[in-house]
Each structure stands twice: as structure tokens, then as C-alpha cells.
């Protein structure tokens, strides 16, 4: 089967999942005990105000109609207005999603750049000094809470060395990148050990494979064997873990976002929950769901690119 046919089939498989996510997102508002409109407005709201909100949210219509309206609007990225900010939710979420995606992409890049060479070193020097040092250091990095790492990085690189801004986002592309660097490193340091360990384990397993021995018997050099033959066979486990973590980090980078005052999706979600801004929560639930599905689709696609057996 060709790659395109494989991608098409996986995409088709994602559709029911996406529908279930829309149902889940839609139900958020109805899972509120009592009248959602009253809960949103608080106990001191007038009956008129509650009635206006009910009509605004369409809560007076039958449930199925509400869902279909929601679905239609969601396809146009129309999630109504934020109760708190009084503006359309779509543009708010979109603006923040850009920063979140940029941050996570940057963090993934950093952790890959660290994890892949170190995993290779660890695997070929396994149970020797280099391996122990790599594993000890990455375990240490993993044990440090992100906010702590973030604060230490700010102390050193922003306040003392003044390499990077302490918070906020720069305007020019370079300044933007600079302001995302420390947050990306904080997240990257958390992600690195996870990727490194899974890659190291599968590298060691692949190094024991017979085709590696056969390649040695044909007089292939160790570098060729490692980089060409072993690495490609070992990436799948790491990519699986990467896919899961990307989905999680898009919504879960809230602490790092707060430390660096980055207007991302995580901080938007926390604010929306605190303010009981239900339409925003609904929109974010849907966005996070779609991001997880998309990340997994990309992981599936990369499997098929790496290993022809998966295309079957």
C-alpha cells in the first residue's frame, strides 16, 4: 500500500474520534449541575440576564439541535463570545495557539537535539562511564519540576547574563525566538530524558539484531551501521512517546507559560476555568482534542515513513 493510501485510511479512522471529541466538548456546558446559564452568571444575576444568556447560548433549544448548531459553528471556528472578554473566542484561541505550538515545537526540537546524540552515545557505551553519566544527568533533569528549572534558567540567563528576556514575547522574529528560548529549554529538559530512555532502549535492542551482525560480517563500518541501519529501526518507540507528550504539552505547559508570562493555551485554559468562562472551556476542550488526534496522526504517518511493514 502506498503512503498516500495509508495516510488516507488513517485520516478516515480519525473522523469518528473527532466526532466523539465534539460530543465531549459540547457536553461540557451541560455537565454543569443545575442551569448552566445561572451557574455562569453567579447567584446574584437577575432572571432577565439569565434568560438572555440562555438564548445567547441556545440553551432553550432541543439538545440535538444545540449539538448540530455547535458542530456547524465549530467547523467555521466560531465558538461564540467569551463571557469574560466579551469578544469572539475563535481569534483569541487562534492567537494563543500559535504561541503554544511555537513553544512546544521549539521544545521538541531542543529535546531531540539533546536526546538523539546522547542516546546513541549511551547505547554504544552501555553500562560504561559515558552511559552512567548521561543517565544520571538526564534523570536529574527529569526530577526537577519545570517551574524550578524555569526559575533557575531565568536567574542565570536573564537576570545575571542578560542573554534572554525574563518574560513576555518579542515582536521581531529573532526577539520572538529569544523570548521563547528559556521556556522551550525548561520544557525540553523535561522531555529529553523521556525520549532519551526510550530511544536508548530500542537502540540497544536493535544493536543485538541479526541484521546488525550480518552487516558487521559484511565488513560495514560501525558508524554506517549505527546511523543508517540501527537508528532508523529504533525511532518508532521514541516517536510514540513524543506524540503522546506533544498532545499533553500543548495544554500542559501552563506552569512554564505562567513563569515566563507567555500568552499560550495553557494559561488561557486556567483563566477560563477560574472565571467560569464556559464557552472558552468548550472551545479549548475541542482544540486540545484535535491537537492530540493530529499529533497521533503525524506519529502514525512517520511510522509508515520509517517502516515499510506498517504500510501493509
Amino acid at each position, binding site marked *: 500500500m502506498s503512503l498516500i493510501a495509508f495516510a488516507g485510511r488513517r485520516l478516515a479512522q480519525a473522523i469518528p474520534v473527532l466526532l466523539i471529541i465534539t460530543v465531549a466538548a459540547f457536553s461540557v456546558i451541560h455537565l454543569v449541575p443545575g442551569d448552566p446559564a445561572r451557574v455562569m452568571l453567579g447567584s446574584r444575576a437577575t432572571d432577565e440576564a439569565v434568560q438572555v444568556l440562555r438564548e445567547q447560548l441556545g440553551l432553550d433549544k432541543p439538545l440535538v439541535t444545540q449539538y448540530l448548531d455547535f458542530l456547524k459553528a465549530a467547523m467555521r471556528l466560531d465558538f461564540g463570545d467569551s463571557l469574560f472578554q466579551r469578544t469572539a473566542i475563535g481569534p483569541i484561541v487562534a492567537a494563543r495557539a500559535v504561541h503554544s505550538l511555537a513553544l512546544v515545537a521549539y521544545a521538541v526540537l531542543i529535546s531531540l537535539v539533546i536526546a538523539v546524540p546522547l542516546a546513541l552515545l549511551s547505547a554504544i557505551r552501555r553500562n560504561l562511564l559515558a552511559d552512567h553519566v548521561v543517565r544520571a544527568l538526564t534523570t536529574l533533569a527529569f526530577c526537577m519540576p519545570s517551574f524550578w528549572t524555569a526559575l533557575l534558567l531565568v536567574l542565570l540567563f536573564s537576570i545575571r547574563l542578560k542573554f534572554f528576556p525574563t518574560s513576555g514575547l518579542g515582536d521581531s522574529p529573532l526577539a520572538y525566538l529569544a523570548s521563547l528560548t528559556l521556556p522551550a529549554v525548561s520544557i525540553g529538559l523535561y522531555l529529553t530524558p523521556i525520549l532519551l530512555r526510550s530511544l536508548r532502549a530500542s537502540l540497544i535492542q536493535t544493536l*543485538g*539484531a*541479526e*541484521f546488525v*551482525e*550480518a*552487516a*558487521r*560480517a*559484511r*565488513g*560495514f*563500518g560501525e558508524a554506517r551501521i549505527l546511523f543508517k*541501519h540501527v537508528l*532508523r*529501526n529504533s525511532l518508532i518507540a521514541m516517536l510514540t512517546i513524543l506524540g503522546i507528550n506533544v498532545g499533553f504539552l500543548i495544554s500542559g505547559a501552563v506552569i512554564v507559560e505562567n513563569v515566563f508570562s507567555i500568552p499560550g493555551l495553557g494559561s488561557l485554559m486556567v483563566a477560563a476555568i477560574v472565571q467560569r468562562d464556559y464557552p472558552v472551556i468548550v472551545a479549548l476542550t475541542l482544540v486540545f482534542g484535535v491537537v492530540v488526534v493530529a499529533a497521533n496522526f503525524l506519529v502514525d504517518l512517520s511510522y509508515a515513513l*520509517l*517502516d*515499510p*511493514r506498517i504500510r*501493509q
Partner: protein
Amino acid sequence: MQTASSPAPLLAARGLSVGLVNRHGAFLATKRVSLAVDRGQSLGLLGESGCGKSITLRALLGLVPHPGEIVGGSVTWKGRDWRSLSKSEIRRIRGKDIAMIFQDPASCLNPVFTIGDQVTETLRLKLSLKAKAARELARDLLDQVGIPAPEERLRLYPHQLSGGMRQRVMIAMAIATEPDLLLADEPTTALDVTIQDQILTLLAGLKERNRMAMILVSHDVGVVAQNCDLIAVMYAGHIVEWGPTYDVLRTPRHPYTRGLLAAIPRLEVSGGRRPLQTIAGAPPTPGELPEGCPFRLRCSSARAECATIPVTLDHKPPGHGSACPIVT
């Protein structure tokens, strides 16, 4: 050493001991193994699973898996000691002068590259061919080893071929450089009987045409009998009997060889059923070898002195050696 021909055989091992490490610690997988092959000669290493025959074969190519290592003895290639060769010289010999094929063709090819990628990679590296020439030679080689529609096969991945076809691909890569010696580690064990026969016939033809020497590791007496000039019988890390195939099979001298040959099931038209003969007991666990003769605990001819005798081959004409001084 038993080969009567040239003073410096193509490949010789002298007193080769290989140490391996498993969960229980370090142990000797082979003990003082000596063997030699000359140009055009074929040697069969015969023995049960775990007797050290495969590890001997790897040691001959310097491929003992880490952290195992050769702890004693030497291997010489055309009179030169492996230890005196540089890493790049060893890499040049591997896959060019000495080729190896393996037991399980399913796992010897890299699953993520096409057959064409893998065959041409070998040709480009070992024969310094350009991409186009390598592709053409690859097609010819696949044709030579009896793979139909080679052009299409080159575009397939290993999992899209049958076991027999995969072993043919391995053989094609092995013979591409017209090696002087082919090491074959149970090359047909993973294949069914008809394919096994085709592969062995293919190997015999190639050997004849290129005057290639071959060391064939097998637990199958029939396979060795049909394909080898010489037989070395291994038991618990030792070579216990060595000699020309005909002599070893017709007049086995060591009690283990006798037991092994008696245990071959035979189809008999008359005379009724006889129970299959077996050798009592089980081979010793590596690392727990008894002192003296390793076979003595299972040997019906064992005597008290077997616990102290060294395992060395005597040499009787015509180059037929046994490690048992009791049974002659």
C-alpha cells in the same frame, strides 16, 4: 593440525577458546578448538544446540558478541594472525574474502530498506561500484542465485519475500565478491526441506565454480554428509572428532559421534519398528563442564580415568582424529 596439504591453510584456528558472559557470569563457550580449511575445501561443524559451533564460526571472523571475547588461541587467515591486522584490514577481509550467511534469513536483512538498497550498498562498499553498475550487478546476482524476476524483487522489502528467497538474497550478497571462504551458520535450518535442498545445491554449485572454501555449521548429519569434505564433531565446546566425511560417518571413533549417528531415525521397509536410539542424559550446561572428558557423564564406555584425561585429538590415518583414548 590435520590438513595434510599446504603449510599455511586458507583459514586456521589453533587452540581457540572463546569466553562468553550470560546471566550466571563468564564461561568458556569453546575450549582449545583447532581446525583448518584449504581453498576449495568444505568443513562441516556438527553438533547439538549450545555446543559452541556457531560461536566458533563467529570467532573465526572476529565477531564474538560483546562482552564475550577470544580468551586463548589464534585465528590465522592466509597465514596472518587476526590480531596482527588493523581494524580496516579486518573490515576489508570481512564481506570480501570471507563471507557469512546466517540461520534465520528473516532477521538478517534490515526490515526498513529494500532488497535493492541492501544488495547495492554491499556492492558499492565492497567492490567500489557506482550506483548504476551496482544495480546491474545486483540484478545479475539475484538471477544467479535463482531468484525469478530479479528487477522487481530488488524493489521489494524483506518482509515481502519468502524465507527461501531471503536466504538467496543473503547468498547473493555473500558471493558477490567471489570470496575465498564462505561461513554458513545453519543456512537451511529455518527453511523447509525442499527449499533446503535447493539452497544446498546452489551453494555446492557456487563452491565448485569459484573454488570457494566453506565452513558449514549444522546439527543435521545429513546436511553435513552431503555437502562437506571434512567433518568436525563438537561437543560441549570441544572438537571431539575430526576427519574426512566418509571415514567419520562410516567408522565413527568417538562414543559421542557413534551415539549421534545411531540416533538418526531410519525408514525401514521390513523388520518392524525399532525404538529410536537416543543418547542418555543432556549436554552439560555451559560453564558447568565436568573435569576431563566432557562426554563422560553420558558415555557408556566411561571409566574412572576419563575424569582426568585431557581432550586432545589423536591422529590416525587418514587424518581421522578422536578425543577418546578409551574407545578406539
